[in-house]
């Protein structure tokens, strides 16, 4: 047994050694990225990981980092597996990270309690726990620009518009195909609330991880129930399969809308030409003809510093990664402005995130004009509930198919605050926010 201890000790020694090394470099901002390029969800994970990595890398190459401070980028492989995600977090939290991107709703849920204790801000961009948009209760969690609840509400608005008004939804059947995991279940409470208000019938079609590619019977039930609209909250291999099955079942594609995570190019491509008309929500543009993407190509991809195939640049999920990193960078930059420090730490970046205000002008500077809508985060509102638009698959690529649509904030926000309160109550001893928002602003 002592021999085991030896091995243990050895491993430990290695681990400790390795885990302090990068932290020593104080002249850099450490930005860990929890990504997944492996496992059943790698299909969605890889482009995002590349997008996030490439933008930050581009800042290093082009501007020598943020405010002259290099960014230490480190990826940690989670495989979209909560267990590995927590391991990743434990291994990085010692290295003074500026901000953590869990990139999985499951992992986010695990880390939310830890973030407050370890004083590390967590950016779960348009995923994670919707109620965490309440800054009063979740000072360390940020999920701009929109929550799943906003997304669902926009879907309802879109459907209503096509049907001719919210009142027209009465008596309609609306189906939610969702991954049977926290991520997939997120929109259910809002949809249920809206179903009550607007009088439509909500049908749930859960898909377990192991049956992601085996949705035959699920689509039979859909054929039986004949829902008027379908909202797809899927991920990974589940999305292309769902689109394919929809085509097979002859479901009218233009009445099937995916959340922004179901809007990958590969997702729609699965259905082939018949998938034309499939819609998905989005909060940033697709395509490579933006200054920022061009810069990435110039400074990163062409130099062979990226893993991403050049011809695929500007695909939806890649751009999503870019957008995410943009939020990180802007938060860091704001933090630098507020604190005057160069190498900012987690607590500084939290302030930065709470003061985050990306205007049209700023977007222009970033070469993101028309790429995304302005984003503003406040101390109380860690999300902003910003506008999203509906994209449509034209058989080969995504096309913007609507204007920017405002979510039903008046419906969402109260639910958010209620949910947040409920969360705090359920977790006895939930730490109170150190300094109140009112005092701060």
């Amino acid at each position: 047994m002592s021999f085991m201890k030896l091995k243990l000790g050895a491993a430990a020694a290695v681990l400790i050694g390795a885990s302090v090394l990068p932290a020593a470099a104080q002249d850099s901002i450490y930005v860990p990225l929890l990504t997944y390029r492996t496992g059943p969800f790698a299909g969605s994970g890889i482009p995002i990981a590349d997008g996030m990595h490439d933008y930050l890398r581009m800042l290093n190459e082009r501007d020598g980092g943020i405010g002259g401070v290099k960014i230490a980028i480190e990826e940690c492989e989670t495989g979209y597996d909560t267990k590995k995600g927590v391991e990743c977090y434990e291994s990085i939290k010692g290295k003074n990270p500026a901000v953590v991107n869990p990139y999985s709703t499951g992992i986010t849920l695990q880390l939310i309690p830890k973030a407050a204790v370890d004083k590390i801000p967590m950016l779960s961009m348009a995923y994670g726990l919707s109620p965490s948009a309440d800054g009063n209760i979740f000072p360390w969690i940020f999920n701009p620009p929109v929550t799943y609840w906003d997304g669902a509400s926009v879907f309802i608005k879109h459907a209503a518009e096509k049907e001719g008004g919210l009142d027209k939804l009465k008596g309609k059947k609306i189906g939610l195909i969702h991954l049977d995991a926290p991520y997939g279940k997120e929109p259910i409470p809002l949809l249920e609330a809206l179903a009550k208000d607007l009088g439509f019938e909500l049908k749930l079609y859960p898909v377990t991880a192991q049956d992601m590619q085996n949705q035959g019977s699920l689509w039979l039930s859909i054929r039986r129930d004949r829902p008027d609209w379908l909202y797809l909250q899927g991920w990974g291999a589940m999305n292309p399969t769902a689109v394919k099955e929809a085509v097979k079942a002859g479901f009218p594609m233009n009445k099937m809308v995916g959340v922004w995570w179901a809007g990958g190019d590969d997702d729609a491509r699965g259905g082939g030409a018949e998938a034309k008309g499939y819609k998905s929500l989005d909060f940033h543009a697709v395509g490579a003809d933006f200054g920022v993407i061009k810069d990435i190509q110039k400074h990163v991809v062409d130099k062979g510093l990226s893993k991403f195939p050049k011809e695929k640049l500007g695909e939806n999920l890649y751009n999503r990664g870019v957008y995410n990193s943009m939020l990180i960078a802007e938060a860091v930059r704001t933090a630098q402005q507020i604190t005057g420090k160069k190498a900012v730490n987690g607590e500084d970046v939290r302030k930065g995130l709470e003061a985050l205000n990306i205007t049209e002008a700023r977007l222009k500077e970033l070469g993101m004009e028309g790429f995304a809508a302005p984003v503003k985060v406040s101390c109380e509102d860690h999300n902003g509930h910003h506008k999203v638009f509906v994209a449509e698959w034209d058989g080969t690529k995504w096309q913007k198919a609507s204007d920017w649509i405002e979510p039903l904030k008046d419906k969402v926000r109260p639910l958010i605050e209620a949910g947040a309160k409920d969360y705090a109550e359920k977790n006895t001893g939930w730490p109170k926010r150190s300094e109140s928002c009112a005092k701060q602003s």
Partner: protein
Amino acid sequence: MASEAAVRRPGIEPRMVAWLFAALGVAALVVILAIAARTGAIGRGNLVYDVVVDPFVLMAQAPDLLVQTLWEGLVSGVLYALIALGFVLIFKASGVFNFAQGIMVVFAALTLVGLHEKGVPALVALVLAVGVMLVLAIAVERVVLRPLVNQPDIILFMATFGLTYFLIGLGELIFGGNPKQMIARQLYLPQGATDAAIFGGRVRFQHIDIAAAAIASLMIATLAVFFSKTRIGRALRAVADSHKAALSVGISLNQIWVIVWFTAGIVALVTGIMWGARSDVSFALQIIALKALPVLILGGFTSIPGAIVGGLIIGVGEKIGEFYWGPLLGGGIESWLAYMIALLFLLYRPQGLFGEKIIERV
């Protein structure tokens, strides 16, 4: 043997009587429930009604959906059967419970698609994929089976676990983990679907599914011929019966193992193509392969017809169950229904559908 008649009790087998009574009971129950439902004694919301009447009402009301369900079940059943077939082949010949069959399916399909992505013409890629499976078979025999010969079953079982992990890593390392489109068109697999109007409803038959069923049955037929007619086939059966016997008549086990694993590899490739064409080729497929295990239980580990029948039972059973009874439990029961069916079946008949009765000796 005169005395045999003497000891055998007169009259019919008690088991037959039991069956008779069971049948009568069920019939009576059906009649009663039918009447109860007619007279409205029990209706929607009533548990009994929801469980034992409503589903059948639904079946009667929408026969097209029933047909569709059966068809879907049939197709997935065929694919389960194919995976199970791979298990059975290997178990018969080498007594190894090959857990890696699932990943072999993914690996084979991935090789095919991956090669095509790298610019290899589809058919060439197909040939190469077959080649890869051969190499894999040889490698497995050399590296895993040969050193582990005469080890207890569980050890070999675990070794295939190791193989699974190895192949997952290797596959992702070479071809990347993202799901890939199956190159069905390039392989001249039929596309599209035919709508058949049945019972005033519309039943949709995917051409690819029809092809899958056809190819699967063709494949099984070929294997059957291969085993019964060819010399190697006979040798295989000999090995299956007894390793020692096979050795004593001068059959090279190693050679047989390579052949068997190669055959299983080809089966895996076909399965991978078919399933890949229905959804995508990704590592998530490997989890579906676990569904082959209940199939094996039903069919028995050593029976090829068992694998087929078992596959169909499981496929149809879980689809019907999920579609008609799933909603009662909140859906998703597909994930475990197959195993429960198998489990209950085992309690009644531990040796599987086609296995012989086990007589314990000391």
